């Protein structure tokens, strides 16, 4: 009995409630004529679409920088990569991986600067990250209008300059990962093999990295910076590495998201994206100073499951669209829960 209670406390009530709610949605789906197979395919798809974003949270949580509310910098790098790749007219795998290659230097540079900044403001990382991220996004809004892009598929038709708010990647690298080795099981059920493989590969690399010398040092910095420093680890360097890593993953994440979603969303779209990733990893069981691959997978699956299932099931049942409200309450409720939990590591 005590064990069970311990297990429940460890897992956390919000997570259990969300899990049960999701199960309930799946059970209820057939009654409101929502196809289970299509729903599962949808969840799988969106799981892959957002998986890398959620993964991007891990390094900074591990190194003690907290939740990366400034993931927007990674997203900005990714958007630069995506638009440049399209500007060069690269298609297919070249287009997608070319975009990653083009985004990487931006991500490393932005991550490095952002990491340096966070090292100067230890203890206030999260609020500052959020606002620096916002400012970065707004700055890029101006840049999207001014940068000399010329590809007719990307700029406003009548002005001939300034990037459009949404740009379709159709004809470039639409669903390039999703359709790679995709397995069609039924009319409504396709397994996006390539996408899942890619996310799996990223997660595996992260898992391996956390077990290397650098990875362990990073975790040590996060769990006890004083001890880490005493054993000769450069705290600031480890933190910077974690921020760079997170930013690069954010860049890859937005590209994975775009190839599946079909559109590049510019301007103010990246403002709220970090919050979704933050909410997902917290739903997966991470705290603000500890995260694992299991948290990533569980979190991305639960969160995306919820986002997929609530509109279809609740809307069919109630004939109204409550999904947005539920999304706001659940995702922010989850972040709030994590921020207010008295963690053992703290104080």
């Amino acid at each position, binding site marked *: 009995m005590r064990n069970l209670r311990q297990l429940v406390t460890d897992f956390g009530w919000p997570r259990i409630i969300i899990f049960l709610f999701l199960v309930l949605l799946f059970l209820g789906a057939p009654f409101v004529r929502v196809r289970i197979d299509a729903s599962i395919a949808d969840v799988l798809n969106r799981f892959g679409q957002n998986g890398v974003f959620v993964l991007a949270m891990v390094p900074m949580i591990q190194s003690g920088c907290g939740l990366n509310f400034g993931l927007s910098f990674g997203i900005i790098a990714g958007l630069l990569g995506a638009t440049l790749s399209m500007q060069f007219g690269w298609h297919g795998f070249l287009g997608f991986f070319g975009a990653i290659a083009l985004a990487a230097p931006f991500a490393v540079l932005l991550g490095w600067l952002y990491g340096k900044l966070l090292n100067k403001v230890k*203890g*206030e990382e999260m609020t500052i990250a959020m606002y620096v991220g916002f*400012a970065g996004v707004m*700055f890029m*809004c101006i840049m999207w209008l001014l940068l000399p892009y010329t590809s007719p598929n990307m700029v406003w038709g009548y002005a001939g300059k300034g990037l459009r708010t949404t740009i379709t990647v159709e004809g470039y690298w639409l669903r390039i990962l999703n359709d790679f080795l995709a397995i069609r099981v039924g009319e409504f059920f396709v397994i996006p093999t390539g996408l899942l493989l890619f996310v799996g590969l990223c997660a595996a690399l992260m898992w391996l990295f956390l077990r290397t010398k650098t990875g362990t040092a990073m975790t040590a910095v996060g769990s006890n910076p004083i*001890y880490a420093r005493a054993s000769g680890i450069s705290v600031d360097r480890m933190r910077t590495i974690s921020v760079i890593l997170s930013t690069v993953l954010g860049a890859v994440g937005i590209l994975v998201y775009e190839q599946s979603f079909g559109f590049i969303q510019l301007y103010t779209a990246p403002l709220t994206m970090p919050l979704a990733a933050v909410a997902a990893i917290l739903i997966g069981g991470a705290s603000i100073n500890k995260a694992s691959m299991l948290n990533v997978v569980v979190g991305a699956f639960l969160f995306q499951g919820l986002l997929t299932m609530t509109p279809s099931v609740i809307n069919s049942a109630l004939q109204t669209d409550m999904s*947005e409200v539920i999304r706001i309450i659940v995702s*922010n409720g989850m972040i709030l829960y994590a*921020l*207010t939990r008295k963690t053992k590591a703290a104080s």
Partner: protein
Amino acid sequence: MSGKRSLGRFFTEYAVVIIFLVITLASIKPSGLSLVYIVQEMLIRLGRNSFLVLALLLPIYAGMGLNFGMTLGAMAGQIGLIFAINWNISGVQGLAFAALLGMPISLLMGWVCGAVLNRAKGREMVTGYILAYFINGIYQFIVLYLMGSVIPITSPAILLSRGYGIRNTLNLEGVRQSLDKLLLLRLGPFALPMATYMVIALLCLFIIWFRRSKLGQDMRAVGHDMAVAGMSGIAVDQTRIVAIIISTVLACFGQIIFLQNMGNLATYNAHDQTSFFAVAAILVGGASVKKATIPNVIIGVMLLHSLFVVSPLAGQKLFGSAMIGEYFRSFIGYGVIALSLVLYAWRSRRETERARESLRGAAAGGAPRGE
């Protein structure tokens, strides 16, 4: 040497204000706006926004940083206004009614917010920010689904055509500028909303009085050092909750004043930017996370809003796109908040390091972490 140092200190202390002043002055000319127009806009916006910004002061005294949770109070004020419109109470009475109805809601919200922030000591700001998002979800649930179905709404004009839920935009015809026009003083080319200014002045007096009261002293003691305050017998958690409750109630009134001036209510978005504008204003006025005064508020509102008036037109003239001006002012707003938070965190870290330096040998520790 020391003169140079104090000059340097002055620049870091007021970096935000100086940068801001330079940008604003530089954009006045390209905007092509007349000085009379800008001053008039400023007078209007001073009345519209000051109350909301003043609501931020108490939590800063209590050491809780910038109260991003003030949005909760703004939402309470909007609920009050919705009912004032519903029952068709117009004029200043309508505003008073909205304030009376919003008050108990904002009291409750303030208590919730204070209790939540007490569980997140050391990261109040980000928690308040997320709390505002969370309560926004609940607000939407109430206003979009419960009003008209569970909560009786008598006026069908403010309901969505499906029969429940409030319309996206409400016309505040009945209460529009009723406070501003109560005592409008014409002074040459300018119109001054004296009644609004008086309300703001009253609030300033209240804050000055409050700072000197026993509770206000306790609050500042808590803000200075929670542990010391606790040891000297101050109920720390309670004092912090009181600071947030007062701030939330003031934000409720502030939002009502703001909206009566605007003249219409974007039911689901009006509160989105409330804390952003208020926080940006107080920081532009030279306040920091730990220290803020009434002059900071007034200067901040004037500076921030003068830029907001000129930047879209300056953007249009300089880059041929008004959007650039719009983006630019958001960028500046967020950037100012980020910059002041960074400067503050950086400075306080340097001070702790300096303090450690003087204790060197006694305790060699690692880098300080916020915990």
